[in-house]
């Protein structure tokens, strides 16, 4: 009886480490430092590969709150103006499997920070890094790259496009 109770308590405390519900209202700047290039396309360079760059991870991976914030910022900063809820228009769609500049979180971060040719503005230095990571996580969630338990199924606004498409590509895991 006592053993059962203490196992239960420990399990409950461990479960408190659930990433999905993490809410970081005051992100520490050191967690979000930008490296020179968030993701190199290749490690090949003349003279042999250099010491590996630190891996830049998405600090808000799987966090429901931050995906929701990314959704809000996507509207507020008018990403819709070119990317229309992920369907594209002036800009390319964001719900896709083939990414020109890479679809990994670090690549998308880079895209937003540095801008890209033919119209993608450079947001780095304008909006804080933590907000860029939130938008990155949201864009990833549009592609089903985030757990369904963290993604909102819909917004409380008019649905112009399906917000989140999963199982769109055969074999793609949630």
């Amino acid at each position, binding site marked *: 009886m006592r053993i059962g109770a203490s196992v239960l308590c420990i399990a409950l405390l461990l479960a408190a480490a659930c990433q999905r*519900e993490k809410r970081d209202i005051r992100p520490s700047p050191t967690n979000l430092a930008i490296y020179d290039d968030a993701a190199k396309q290749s490690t090949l360079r003349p003279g042999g590969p250099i010491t590996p760059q630190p891996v830049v991870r998405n600090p808000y991976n799987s966090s429901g709150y931050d995906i929701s914030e990314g959704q809000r910022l996507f509207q507020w900063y008018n990403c819709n103006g070119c990317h229309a809820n992920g369907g594209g228009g002036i800009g390319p769609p964001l719900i896709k499997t083939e990414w020109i500049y890479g679809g990994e979180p670090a690549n998308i971060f880079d895209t937003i920070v540095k801008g890209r040719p033919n119209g993608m503005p450079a947001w780095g230095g304008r909006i804080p890094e933590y907000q860029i990571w939130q938008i990155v996580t949201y864009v990833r969630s549009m592609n089903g790259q985030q757990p369904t338990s963290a993604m909102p199924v819909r917004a409380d606004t008019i649905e112009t496009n399906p917000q989140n498409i999963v199982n769109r590509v055969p074999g793609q895991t949630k």
Partner: protein
Amino acid sequence: MIATQDLAPQIPNQAEEIEQLQRSWRHPRGVLGWLSYTTHQAIGMRYIVTAFIMLLAGGIEALLMRTQLARPDNNFLSPDKYNQIFTTHGTTMMFLFAVPMMEGMAVYLIPLMCGTRNVAFPRLNAFGYWMFLFGVLFLYWGVFTNAAPDMGWFAYPPLSGPQYTPGKRTDYWAQMITFTEVSALCVATEIIATIFKMRAPGMSLNRMPLYVWSMLIQSFMVIFAMPAVVVASSYLLSDRTIATHFVNPAEGGDPILYQHVFWFFGHPEVYIIFLPALGFVSAIVVAHSRREIFGYTAMVLAQVANGFIAFGLWVHHMFATGLPQIGEAYFTASSMMIAITSGVQIFCWLATLWAGKPRLTAALHFVYGFVAIFVLGGLTGVVLASVPLDWQVHDTYFVVAHFHYVLIGGALFPLFGAFYHWFPKMTGRLMNEKLGKLNFWVLFIGFNLTFFPMHILGLKGMPRRVYTYPTEMGWEQSSFIATVGAYVIALGGILFIANVLSSRRFGAMAGNNPWSADSLEWATASPPKSYNFEYLPMVTSRYPLWVQRSERAFVTGLRSDRREALVTTLMDAEPHHRYVLPTSSIWPFITAVAVSIGFAGSIFNPWYLTWGSVLSGLALIGWFWPRRPVELES
């Protein structure tokens, strides 16, 4: 053994019958056995203990809230934590403490008061408890994983919608409701069936104890009200998990729809909590003032009226939403009218006490406290029923004060009185009366210290659900007093637990009927055997144990080598037929596990509903597989 009930010694084979009864009603052994209990005393006790733990959890949440609000601009709790804690406090108290506790007391007391051996559907009873327990575990798993609901215990959309409450928090809340209302519906069904069809012969409807009437009416209310909250929480769940638009304003849904459906449940819910407490008060007043209730018919009719009118009040929670004037006037009238039914009952109790021989036991102290606190809460309710006044005090601390006065005064104080009154029956020992009276005073003073200043705070403009407030508002003093009172209430709780624990060990032996009370549960052993009565009693009066011994009669002829009870007719309780009760069974537990897998998993992945249904279907097949009644070999 024969002294547990007063029997004429002429019944043949008495000793052998009683020995067979003990064997056929024996509880099975081991862990699997414990999971298979179907006797109502065991299940009732489980409800009571689990609900009491939920009371403590809710109390701790309240202490945390009050600590944060003791000083202005306090930073003891972040806004996110505060929102989670106040939502969990309300949710725990309303769904996981109040209703299940009343149900648990009913499950324990109703078969005893009606003079029968078990509830009508013992396995359903067990299933209901397991669903309640799994609901508790489900919600508190969420609480401990930073996924406690944080949008208020009534979860208004769009705040509780997918965009404004991300993550799983609201989903835990909405699905927990499913668990608890399945449990409530199970108990309501079997209470109605037990009361209608399994009363002791001669206990016609107008001879039923008032507590039995309360539970009957309350159970009907549960059946009509709970489906509304199923619907409301389903709107929310499906909006959040499968992208429906029930309450999405942008796509044609309406947040006000949710409010109507929720409050159609929400208002009867508080009467569902309150009505059994009224039954407790009647039982305690009659027993401890040692006279028959004044105005039995008026009491019954008042409670029935209460039950009906309670369904016509719900819009008074929505007076600030901009309703048409005629609608507001109607709901003002009905909200004030219900004060009449409550008032009639108060007058009848006061009349009983006035012309009785009140013996100031701890239980009666709680009844006096109930009258004082509940009447004040009822009067502030009349204030809230008035639309212009409600426009000022709605969603302020005035409302918080009101509902705590009616809920704590109207339900918790009678509940504590009921504990002091029936503890001897449930455990065989008397609680310490001195400590009980001290317990009452500490709770009474602490309660008033906490909640009376909140009336002032509300009138001074302090809204509800704020995690902090600025210094210049002048709310500091009353808030601090309220916090001190909260800690005094906590002390009262500790005193109660101390009294329970010490009385269980060292309390004086109670005997069958320490209070010389009138109803049937006092006719048998304390604690009752698992078959309740060796021979089911017959009643010829409203107050069976106040009838002369020589005039008491019993039912003989029920088989004792298997679990049997007597089914009687609805109106006059004439014996109708014998009813074989099921023996212990593991299937309710297995079914509850299967259903819980379906419910709990479905908030993460809809496929769990499918697999849960399949498993539940299999479990139900096991449950209902035709079996011979279990009989002892002779």
